[in-house]
C-alpha cells in the first residue's frame, strides 16, 4: 500500500510541472518532426525514398504542427515562450508546405532550401524547449 502511495506522489509531483515546463515537454514531437522532415527530404533528393512516403510524412508532420500550435495557444505558459514557439511552428508549417509544392514540381533546389529551414527550426525549437525546461 505504501508503495502505491509513493508512486501516486511521484505521478502527482511529475504532473504538477510549471506551465512553461509542460509546454517545453510537448515540443519534443514537433521538433523531432522538423528534423525528420529535413532528413526525409534529403533522402528524397538522393532518390533513396519514394515520393509517396515523403507526402505521407508531410501529412503526419502537418497534423503534429497543427496539434501543437493549438495546444500552445491554449497553454498557460509565459507569452514570451509561447510567441517564440509559435514563431518556429509557423516557420516549419511554411517550409513544409513549400516543400510539398517543390516535391510535386520536382524542384530539388527548393526542397534543399526548405529542408535546411526545417532543420534550423527544429534545432531552435529544441533549444527553446531545453531553456524552458530548466
Amino acid at each position, binding site marked *: 500500500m505504501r508503495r502505491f502511495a509513493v*508512486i501516486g506522489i*511521484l505521478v502527482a509531483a*511529475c504532473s504538477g510541472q510549471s506551465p512553461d515546463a509542460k509546454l517545453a515537454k510537448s515540443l519534443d514531437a514537433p*521538433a*523531432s*518532426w522538423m528534423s525528420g522532415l529535413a532528413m526525409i527530404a534529403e533522402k528524397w533528393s538522393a*532518390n*533513396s*525514398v519514394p515520393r509517396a*512516403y515523403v507526402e505521407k510524412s508531410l501529412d503526419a508532420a502537418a497534423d503534429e504542427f497543427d496539434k501543437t500550435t493549438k495546444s500552445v495557444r491554449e497553454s498557460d505558459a509565459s507569452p514570451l515562450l509561447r510567441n517564440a514557439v509559435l514563431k518556429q511552428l509557423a516557420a516549419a508549417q511554411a517550409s513544409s508546405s513549400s516543400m510539398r509544392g517543390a516535391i510535386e514540381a520536382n524542384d530539388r533546389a527548393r526542397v534543399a532550401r526548405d529542408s535546411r529551414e526545417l532543420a534550423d527550426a527544429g534545432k531552435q525549437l529544441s533549444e527553446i524547449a531545453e531553456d524552458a525546461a530548466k
Partner: protein
Amino acid sequence: MKKALQLALGILTAVGGFFDVGNLATSAQAGARFRFQLIWSLLFATILVIFLVEMSGRFAAVSGKALPSAIRDHLGFSFWLGPFVILTLVHLLVLGAEIGGISFALQLVTGIGFQWWAFPVAIVIWLFLWRATFSAIENSTSLLGLITLCFVVAAVVHHPPLHQVAAGARPTLPSHDGATYWFIAVSIIGSVIAPYLFYFYSSGAVEDKWDKSYVAVNRGISVIGMTFGSAIALGALVVAAMVLAPRGIHVSDYNQAAAMLTDAFPFWGFVLFAASMGIACLGAALEVALSLAYATSQTFGWNWGEDLHPREDARFSLTYTVAIFLSALIIAAGIDPLKLTLFTMVINAAVLPFVTIPFLLLMNDRRLLGTNCNGWFSNAIVVMIVIVSFVLAIVSIPLAFIGGT
C-alpha cells in the same frame, strides 16, 4: 546428424523469428533518444528470455505438455482463469501491434494509409493459419525473417564507437528525460520477454513431438538463437543511435524511422526497412495468433494443433479467426501503430508475473519433470524475473503517463 540439422534449423528460425514490431519500435526509440545508454536493458532482457525459453522448451520436451494445459491440469482451472483472461487481452493488443506493423510497412511501399491495410492483412494472416502446417509457418516466416539481419550489417557499416557501445551495457542513470528513459527501458524488456513467446514455444515443441532427447537441442536453440536474435535488436538500436540521434530525430512516428537504413544502403535501405518490418511482423502475428489459440484451447480442454485440419479442431481455428479480426479492428480504427506498440510493450512487462509465477511452480514439480526440474540457479533467475517483473508492473503504468511518447 538429424539432431544437428534440427539444431541448426531451430537456431535459424529463432534468429529469424526473434525480431518483431516491439523490438523495432523500442530499439529505434532507445537509440534515437539515448544513443547507446539503454543497451543494458536489451542485454538484461535477453538473459532472462534465454532462461524462460529454455525452460518452456525443456518443460514441453520432458512432460509432453504445453504450458497452459499443464498449468490448468496441475494448478487448477480457477487458479489459471484470471491470468488467462489478462494474457488473452494482452495477446490481442500485441496482435494488433503486429498487424499495425505489417500495415505500416505496406503504407511505406504503396502510399495507401495503414488503416486501409488492416483487414487485407488480417485475411492473409488468417489464410496462412488456415492452410499451412506448423512447420511450414515456422520455417518460412522465420527464414524470410533473416532479412532483418540488415540492421546488424547496417550497424557494422556505420562503425559505431565500440567503447560507447560497451559502456551502454552497464546500467546508468539518465542525464535527461528520466521518465522517458525508464519508460523505454521497460518497453524494451516487455518487447523481448513477450509472454506469447513461451506459450508458442512450448506448444510448438509439443506440435513438433519433442521428447527428452531434445533437451540439449532446446538449450542450444534458446541460448544461440535468442542471443543472435537479440543482436538484430541491438543492430537497430545502434543504427538509430548513429543516424537518428545526431539529427535530433526522436521517433514519435514510424515514418521518422523508415529512412534509418538509407545512410548505410542508399538505394535499398528504404525497401529493406519496409520488408524487414513487414516480414518480421507477419511472422510475429502468426505466432501471437497461434499462441492465443493454443492457450485458449488448452485452457478449455479443446482439440488443438496447427497440423490438424480446421474441421478437427474447429474451436481452435475459430479462436484465431476471431482474434485476428478483433485485433485488425484496432488498426482499422486508425490508432497510431507506434503508440499502440509502445503501450503494449509496457503492458507486456506489467503482466510478466502472471506468466512467471505459475511457470516457476511447474518447473519445480518433480512428478512432471523428474530429474529435469529446475536447479537452484535456474530458480534464482526465475525468482529474480518475478521480482523484476513485479517492480516493472508497479512502475511501468505510471511511467506510461509521465514519460510515454
